[in-house]
């Protein structure tokens, strides 16, 4: 994956065929894992905090629905192939959405693996191998998207 062009508010990346296939699979199969409840506070357990946590989880459920729709759109509209060369074209808002989709995938796989401290540990079952692979692939694209063409 490499940055081809960054003109104005658009990014254009060139992808190898395998990268494009993997990214497309990550997008079209999103979400891979079920959404687990999020915590609003570690120490505060009063009624107000409980309400806030409820709202947070409702909001995150809605957000995941939006990410699923966006993932389908990204796979269809932003990923394209011309004469054997794959391109990923992103506007800023799509870049952030793509990062959120990828990190939802990465952290979701990690949580389903049992939140291991050592994320490089050898999987002891085919299911864990699959989750570990998904986690690493999502991380691969995240790292490239953030590192390539992000102005600081």
């Amino acid at each position, binding site marked *: 994956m490499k940055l081809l062009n960054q003109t104005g508010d658009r990014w254009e990346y060139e992808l190898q065929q395998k990268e494009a296939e993997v990214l497309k699979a990550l997008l079209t199969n999103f979400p891979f894992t079920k959404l687990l409840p999020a915590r609003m506070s570690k120490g505060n357990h009063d009624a107000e905090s409980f309400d806030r946590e409820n709202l947070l989880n409702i909001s995150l459920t809605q957000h995941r629905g939006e990410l699923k729709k966006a993932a389908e759109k990204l796979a269809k509209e932003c990923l394209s192939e011309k004469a054997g060369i794959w391109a990923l074209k992103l506007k800023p808002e799509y870049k952030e959405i793509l990062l959120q989709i990828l990190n939802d995938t990465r952290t979701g796989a990690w949580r389903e693996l049992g939140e291991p401290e050592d*994320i490089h540990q050898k999987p002891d079952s085919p299911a864990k191998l699959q989750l570990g692979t998904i986690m690493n692939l999502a991380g691969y694209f*995240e790292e490239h998207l953030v590192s390539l063409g992000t102005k600081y």
Partner: protein
Amino acid sequence: MPTVLEPVTKPVLRKKPESDDDLAPTFYVICWNDPVNLMVYVTHVFMKIFGWNRQKAEKHMMEVHEKGKSVLTREGAEKAEFYVHQLHKYKLQATMEPAE
């Protein structure tokens, strides 16, 4: 004859609150460490959400990484809640804790 200096006790003046907001509780927005979120990603998210420059975002990211957590900001309930929601949308582990 020299005058004897006596200790003077000044009254402690309390600042009058300008509005009800001054009395409202405030919260720390805290980001917690985990082994899965990439360091470059965390820095990017802090910059996006808080509008920080890279140096400040990296400082907080390193604090999360090395100390297990970083207090990102102190805000009223509504704004703290907003930031926690934003951080969770990016799948960072964030909470709001009452500030003393």
